[in-house]
């Protein structure tokens, strides 16, 4: 075996599940505490917040204004059909809204949590029937499609509901990430622990925020996700989002494509581990696959301090999207860290043995899942 120069490769340390569990139960952060990590996480979350703002506005626009439109050609233009904007869109001088759609479809497909349960309920089916009835009177094409394909329009409505819910979720997260950057500039946040606490507080504060959605057909308003459904931000949208996008993902989320016919993909969606925390930051052959799209978008809004820092390491501008992706994964581990801390069954310092056992079981379940993710980015040396 030839000797490879040590400065050419760096084997990332992979903490075992027990170490992750220990950190979670000790209230420590998963990501190592370094000034570089603070710069990376806060900076990349600020750019992510800017991107999520655009994603959120577009998803909500699509759900409200492109509802049951079978040919949503201009869905990414937010209703602005200015020729200059259309040209920029065609010339790809724009945000990659495709990534937002991709995340929405991951949520829809994996279907976990309260939102998915509601979308499969009879109450939702009844609402769909009313909406379709009203829509068929206005739209001849839908009037033809619905009797031919009975599940087609309900599925489009489920898609629209998920789209709107994700838009609402990202609205909150966008503001939270931009507030985090402001807090860091004000000196209120200066460490990874404070970053995680800030995110946890933000998630907890928004936890009970109701998730609702209604559409207007003609002059009449029809609820799709009514207040009576009792859907809330944290349990019904945020947790399914983490499950679908951070953990499971889809086989093409990473940079390695898989051959389903060769049984390289488990038919059990619960066995999927292709999410953002598992994705390879290094694109293979540079195809325009979703993570690359998100990195392109974040690159447009990168804070100068972080951009300057990137220019000092590795290939500088040449591999900046890879570095953004690596920083993004660190940031997502912080968000996951905050979500786990915010949803622990009992306070960490509880002296009750039963509470401790419950916390331990909860932390172990998470640590086991995260152990096979790209935790090599968590070390101080990464």
């Amino acid at each position, binding site marked *: *075996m*030839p*000797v*490879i*120069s040590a*400065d*050419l*490769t*760096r*084997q*990332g340390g*992979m903490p075992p599940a027990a170490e992750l569990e220990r950190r979670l139960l000790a209230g420590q952060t998963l990501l190592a505490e370094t000034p570089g990590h603070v710069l990376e996480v806060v900076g990349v979350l600020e750019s992510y917040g800017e991107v999520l703002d655009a994603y959120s506005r577009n998803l909500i626009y699509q759900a409200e204004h492109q509802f049951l439109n079978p040919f949503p050609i201009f869905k990414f233009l937010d209703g602005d059909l200015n020729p200059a904007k259309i040209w920029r869109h065609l010339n790809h001088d724009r945000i990659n809204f495709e990534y937002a759609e991709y995340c929405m479809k991951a949520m829809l497909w994996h279907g976990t949590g309260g939102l998915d349960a509601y979308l499969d309920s009879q109450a939702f089916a009844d609402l769909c029937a009313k909406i379709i009835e009203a829509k068929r009177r206005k739209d001849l094409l839908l009037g033809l499609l619905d009797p031919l394909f009975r599940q087609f329009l309900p599925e489009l409505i489920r898609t629209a509901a998920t789209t709107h819910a994700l838009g609402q979720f990202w609205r909150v997260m966008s503001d939270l990430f931009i507030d985090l950057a402001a807090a860091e500039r004000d000196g209120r946040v200066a460490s990874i622990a404070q970053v995680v606490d800030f995110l946890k507080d933000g998630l907890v504060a928004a936890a009970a925020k109701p998730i609702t959605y209604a559409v207007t057909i003609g002059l009449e308003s029809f609820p799709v996700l009514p207040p009576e459904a009792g859907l809330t931000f944290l349990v019904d949208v945020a947790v399914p989002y983490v499950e679908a996008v951070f953990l499971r993902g889809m086989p093409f989320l990473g*940079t*390695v494509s898989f051959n389903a016919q060769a049984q390289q993909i488990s038919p059990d969606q619960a066995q999927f581990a292709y999410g953002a925390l598992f994705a*390879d930051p*290094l*694109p*293979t*052959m*540079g195809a325009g696959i979703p993570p690359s799209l998100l990195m392109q978008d974040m690159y447009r809004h990168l804070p100068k301090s972080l951009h300057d820092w990137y220019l000092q390491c*590795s*290939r500088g501008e*040449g*591999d900046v*999207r*890879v570095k953004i992706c690596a920083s993004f994964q660190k940031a997502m581990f912080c968000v996951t860290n905050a979500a786990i801390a915010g949803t622990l069954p009992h306070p960490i310092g509880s002296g009750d043995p039963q509470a401790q056992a419950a916390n331990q079981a909860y932390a172990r379940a998470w640590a086991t899942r995260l152990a*096979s993710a*790209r935790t*090599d980015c968590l070390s101080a040396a*990464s």
Partner: protein
Amino acid sequence: MMSSVLMAFPWLSLLLAIPFLGTFALLLWPGEPSPGRLRGITIGLLAAQLVASLALLLVFDPALGGMQLEELHSWVPSIGLNYQLGVDGLSLPLVLINAALTLVAAVCTRDFSKRPRIYFSMLLLISGAVNGAFLAENLLLFFLFYELELIPLWLLISIWGGNQRAYAATKFLIFTAVSGMLILGAFLGLALFTGTVDFSLTAITSERLAMGSQIVLLSALLVGFGIKLPLVPFHTWLPDAHTQASTPVSVLLAGVLLKLGTYGILRFGMGLFPEAWAQLAPGLAIWAAITVVYGSLAAIAQRDMKRMVAYSSVGHMGYVLLAGAAATPVALLGAEFQMVSHGLISALLFLLVGTVYRKTGTRDLDVLRGLLNPERGLPFTGTLMILGVMASAGMPGMVGFIAEFLVFRGSLLAYPIATLVCMVGSGLTAVYFLLLVNRAFFGRLAITPASDNPVDDARLDIQLAPVAPRETLPALALALGVLALGLFPALLGHWSEATTTAMAQFPALLAPITDGGLG
């Protein structure tokens, strides 16, 4: 008036004077000039040599098949050694390739901190010696130049080579010394049997010997030049020499020095012994086919990128022997194209392999993965590598296709079986170079052996230094040459066709099958 002045100018001597005087100048340069300055002077001299070589095109008449711009000065007439130079359509492209590739070798020299004065003077000395060998019209003068390039190349391998450089350099020295002895023996034997002391190429070619003597002398030449070419089974020095040589030396070795073997076989083997050549030609065609297939199969078995390219040279040089055996005008033109094509393509491939080695520290195909990665790999190097292997495999649009097509077209009717076997060898080129590209350049970027757990592989953070644009300029220039001659083959055929056609007109070489030229 201007034309006569140009014609009277000793252009060929100038092509020898620039590198030889440059060698002395570097060796005697006062003080301790910096390596950068020595490199700059060398590049300047080699650029001047390239310009002078290109100037030959102004005075060379492509319509003539014989020697031109001849120069004759008596040197040691008592032993038949005279300073007699000339150039024709066979040697002109090789002189140009020599000038271009020596310049490329000097430009792509990155690490010249170790004994730079000797290194650059040896580069110049090799270039001058090779020019002399290609231009010599006197057998002894050719031999002197042929031997003269041996020592500098031995030094270049043994001083600036890899860990096993002493072994490789000694092996190269022994093989090439035997090659020189056989060639000298054949030349002296020719004089002995014909009773002449005039080693002038034009004077001695008309001599007629008994067939048995011709075959003995030709066999000595074939083995002598076959070692240099190299032909199987005399090839074993080449992969070792390439593996241990630095990148610039590999460029010279593959691009220029192997051509001394093919040139010698065509110029002296076929030219001096046309009747014996015609007798041995069927055997030579079989030898060529064996060399092509063996070289290709050996290349497939390699795991070291450089050894793979080296074995591909063995295979591709076999095409020249096949074309020489057929000796039709088209085949000989194909041989000329193949020499130029192989010079450009193999130099390109060695440059790129050198870049990979410099950036990754390895050439092991079991280790390298995904180097085409646009973010952290060597994407432009990979792109040129794909172009290079396509050219080597004979893809249309590149010079490799023109060369192989002409060789096969010119040889098929004369030796159909051998030609078909060589065509299979051409297909095998695609096999081993696709293996190379697929293993080293496609997939997920990694430079460690694939472990049982592929997840571990994927976690390596590859930190390859990027390739600066100036580092790729020599390879880019060669790639453009490969494309230019592939798209416009007349750029080369125009200068060589008359000579290669004339070479095929020896009565003994006139095969029952006749075919036309390019046009």
